[in-house]
């Protein structure tokens, strides 16, 4: 180990004058350990590596404690979201509605259409004669055999949710009345007004006249009709109310359908929306009965001829890919978790996995290599053939195959991490075994081993106390270097999605976000810091390993 040529740097004492020239105390003698440390610290790259490693360890292990956030703590933010609320369709063509039990098929409808456009008062189809009447500007009724079998109108009668469908007679009566009123330009009920900014503002909480009064007002304006012996009133927007003022049906060329079956569109909102469509307003501000304000925007889709009503709501969503800020120094990731904290915990996972894997590999390697080197003979032969087989096994493909198998088994992420460490450790012991064996083979022939044999020291004692310590320097160097490569292997696997899995963070699976090209392009703060951490940690291990090698073995010239 200690080479006399390099091992005795004749450092001069500051106060050398006190001693005579041949005084031993003039020569400062360093212990082997101190010599190694001195040589190590003289190597600038090694010192840089050590500093990097210390920084990385502090960052990963202390950082996680200092950080105010947890590794899987998610953050949310308020965002304005447009959700589809309703669609308004304007009927521009006549729709045919047949009476209950009456047959008024498409062919008859086509005939009826042409008859109407020709101005005929009757037409015949399949031997049945239909008489056309026009009780209102936008209503045609078809009578056959003395009863009305169908009507055609661009007005559509719809009912509020939960009400029974109105009778055929009621429909005709309502459309007649409303179509006539519309043609007369009647403005009986007060419609919501469009304000200067082009928005329709409706407030449901405002003290409105009670329904009965409203009905009475409409009645006073003459907007009444009778159907099935009951008298109804209606307002301008086409709401048909019974005597108590309750809306029983809506008659309008516009059909409003809520996008969600559970949504009931309130009457006043419906009115407001229709007014807005009429006035080409694009926004409706509506305050519902509970006092909450909703904003609806209306856009016309010319292709489907539908006015889309979207509601702008403030929703609490995960704060995904937030830019770096004071709160989150490196922003947040795709799950709304703090990136810097993830990075710290990821470092912890990556480093711990590296250490455990190398520990497993070194343990197995030292035992197998020690047995093989010390005993030799057929044991050596057997173990070395096993090592040969392991060398020949393509390790990366095998890890990938096992990783995808673990994917298929849907293992718990925690169990999976343990398996990963075992697999990596089990696949990397042969190189250490080979190294230990080589060292022990040469050490076995040296005089001090002869001395241990002569003094009758037991075999395990000889191996553990006298051989292994002499292998330590090479072992430490090799382990330090393989720490770096293990971390890279783990990161590569996690990057491919076959290693450490969510919710655990590791530097590799943090970077795997770049598989989404959009993240790679736009969110540098997600993956560049993780990559730099990974690079620095591995570089640190390699620098230190390199420096240790030179310090242990001065003949190697760094």
């Amino acid at each position: 180990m200690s080479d006399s040529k390099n091992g005795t740097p004749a450092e001069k004492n500051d106060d050398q004058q006190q001693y005579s020239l041949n005084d031993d105390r003039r020569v400062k003698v360093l212990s082997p350990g101190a010599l190694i440390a001195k040589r190590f610290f003289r190597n600038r790259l090694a010192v840089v590596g050590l500093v990097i490693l210390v920084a990385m360890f502090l960052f990963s292990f202390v950082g996680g404690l200092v950080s105010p956030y947890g590794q899987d703590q998610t953050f949310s933010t308020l965002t304005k979201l447009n959700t589809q609320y309703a669609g308004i369709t304007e009927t521009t063509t006549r729709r045919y509605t047949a009476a209950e039990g009456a047959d008024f098929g498409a062919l008859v409808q086509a005939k009826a259409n042409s008859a109407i456009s020709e101005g005929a008062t009757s037409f015949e189809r399949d031997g049945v004669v239909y008489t056309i009447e026009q009780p209102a500007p936008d209503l045609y009724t078809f009578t056959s055999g003395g009863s009305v079998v169908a009507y055609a109108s661009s007005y559509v009668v719809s009912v509020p949710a939960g009400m029974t469908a109105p009778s055929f007679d009621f429909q005709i009566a309502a459309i007649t009345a409303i179509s006539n009123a519309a043609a007369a330009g009647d403005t009986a009920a007060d419609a919501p007004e469009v304000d200067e900014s082009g928005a329709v503002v409706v407030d449901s909480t405002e003290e409105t006249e009670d329904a009965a009064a409203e009905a009475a007002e409409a009645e006073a304006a003459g907007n009444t009709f009778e159907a099935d012996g009951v008298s109804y009133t209606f307002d301008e927007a086409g709401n048909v109310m019974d005597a108590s003022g309750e809306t029983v049906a809506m008659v309008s060329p516009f059909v409003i359908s809520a996008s969600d079956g559970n949504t009931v569109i309130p009457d006043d909102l419906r009115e407001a929306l229709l007014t807005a469509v009429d006035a080409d307003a694009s926004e409706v501000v509506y305050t519902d009965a509970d006092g909450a304000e909703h904003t609806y925007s209306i856009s016309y889709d010319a292709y489907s001829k539908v006015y889309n009503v979207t509601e702008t709501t403030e929703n609490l969503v995960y704060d995904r890919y937030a830019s770096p800020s004071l709160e989150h120094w490196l922003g947040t990731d795709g799950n709304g978790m703090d990136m810097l904290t993830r990075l710290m915990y990821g470092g912890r996972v990556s480093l711990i996995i590296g250490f455990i894997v190398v520990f497993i590999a070194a343990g197995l390697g030292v035992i197998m290599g020690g047995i093989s080197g010390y005993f030799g003979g057929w044991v050596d032969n057997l173990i070395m053939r096993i090592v040969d087989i392991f060398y020949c096994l393509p390790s990366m493909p095998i890890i990938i195959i096992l990783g995808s198998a673990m994917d298929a088994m849907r293992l718990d992420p925690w169990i999976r991490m343990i398996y990963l460490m075992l697999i990596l450790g089990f696949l990397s012991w042969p190189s250490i075994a080979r190294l230990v064996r080589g060292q022990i083979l040469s050490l076995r022939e040296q005089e001090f081993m002869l001395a241990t044999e002569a003094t009758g020291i037991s075999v395990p004692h000889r191996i553990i106390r006298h051989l292994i310590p002499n292998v330590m320097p090479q072992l430490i160097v090799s382990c330090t270097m393989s720490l770096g490569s293990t971390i890279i292997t783990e990161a590569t696997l996690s990057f491919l999605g076959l290693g450490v899995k969510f919710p655990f963070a590791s530097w590799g699976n943090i970077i795997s976000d770049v598989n989404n090209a959009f993240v790679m392009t736009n969110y540098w703060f997600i993956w560049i810091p993780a990559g730099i951490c990974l690079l620095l940690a591995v570089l640190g291990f390699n620098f230190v390993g390199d420096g240790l090698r030179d310090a242990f073995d001065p003949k190697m010239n760094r």
Partner: protein
Amino acid sequence: MRTYIAKRIGISVIILFCVTFIIYGLMRSLPASYVETMAMQLSQAPGAKPYEEWLAQLNAQYGLDLPVPIGYVTWLGDFLTGNFGDSWKFNVPVITEFTNTIGISFVMGGLAFVFSTIIAVPLGILAATHQYSKSDYIISAVALAGISLPTFFFATLLKLVFSVGLGWFDLYGLMGRDYAQLDAFGQALDIVNHMVMPVVTLTVIQIGSLMRYTRTNMLEVLNADYIRTARTKGLPEHKVIYKHAFRNTLIPLVTVIGGSLPGLFSGALITETLFMIPGTGYTSYQAMTAGDIPYTMFFLTFIAIITLLSNLLTDILYAVVDPRVRIS
């Protein structure tokens, strides 16, 4: 020498049997493999047989109902008679898929190999001859950084800078979208353009270790007694270095470089996957993750043979290049 090679080949064959058996056993004993997935899909078709029946039928069809040792012997017999089977994932004979993809992998590997050798060897020599100088420190640091650089991170950085930022290259693939419209020359240019980033990645990843290897060996030679003799004779420095030192450094270099030649056929699994280059590496990655036993077995056996061949070649080259070495 001849007996040595014969013995080595004999041992290699035994190792190969063990390795293929291990891989076969591994592939067979994995749960939720290709066949299970397929049986699951087939059983969900309307009016289909239940999952268990499909599974039994498919297992019988693919020879998976045999116990592992018998299955292995069957596979081995097929393999030795040149029947490599059909790939499950790609629906073509394994050998067809392999010959289709090996070319591009070999070209890429070869280019990276040539570039990394051209760059690494002179730099390694420079570092060794100017030991402890500034350039030595820089080269050593860069070499270590090259070893420490994770492939996927470097590849992603390249993509960000040159594809997204500068727009010089496409992000993925080997051909542009207008490949079919180009003439022969344009098609060649297109492929070269797409290969730049993968080759650069491979080169940078390989360069570090070769540089360090050159430097270490050169330093060892420079400390040898005959170099001191040459200097004391008064030979000019360049003659000392290039005639006496470098020639002796070539011995381990040629050995290592020669030994890595068979590896060019194995494809670059990670790099090809990152850039979606349709070479053997990417293809085998897809096959492995899909549980495609015939293709994976063929590919991994191929890799094992290549590895054994490399080791053998390294040892033989060592004896051939350096007459001082006598193989016993």
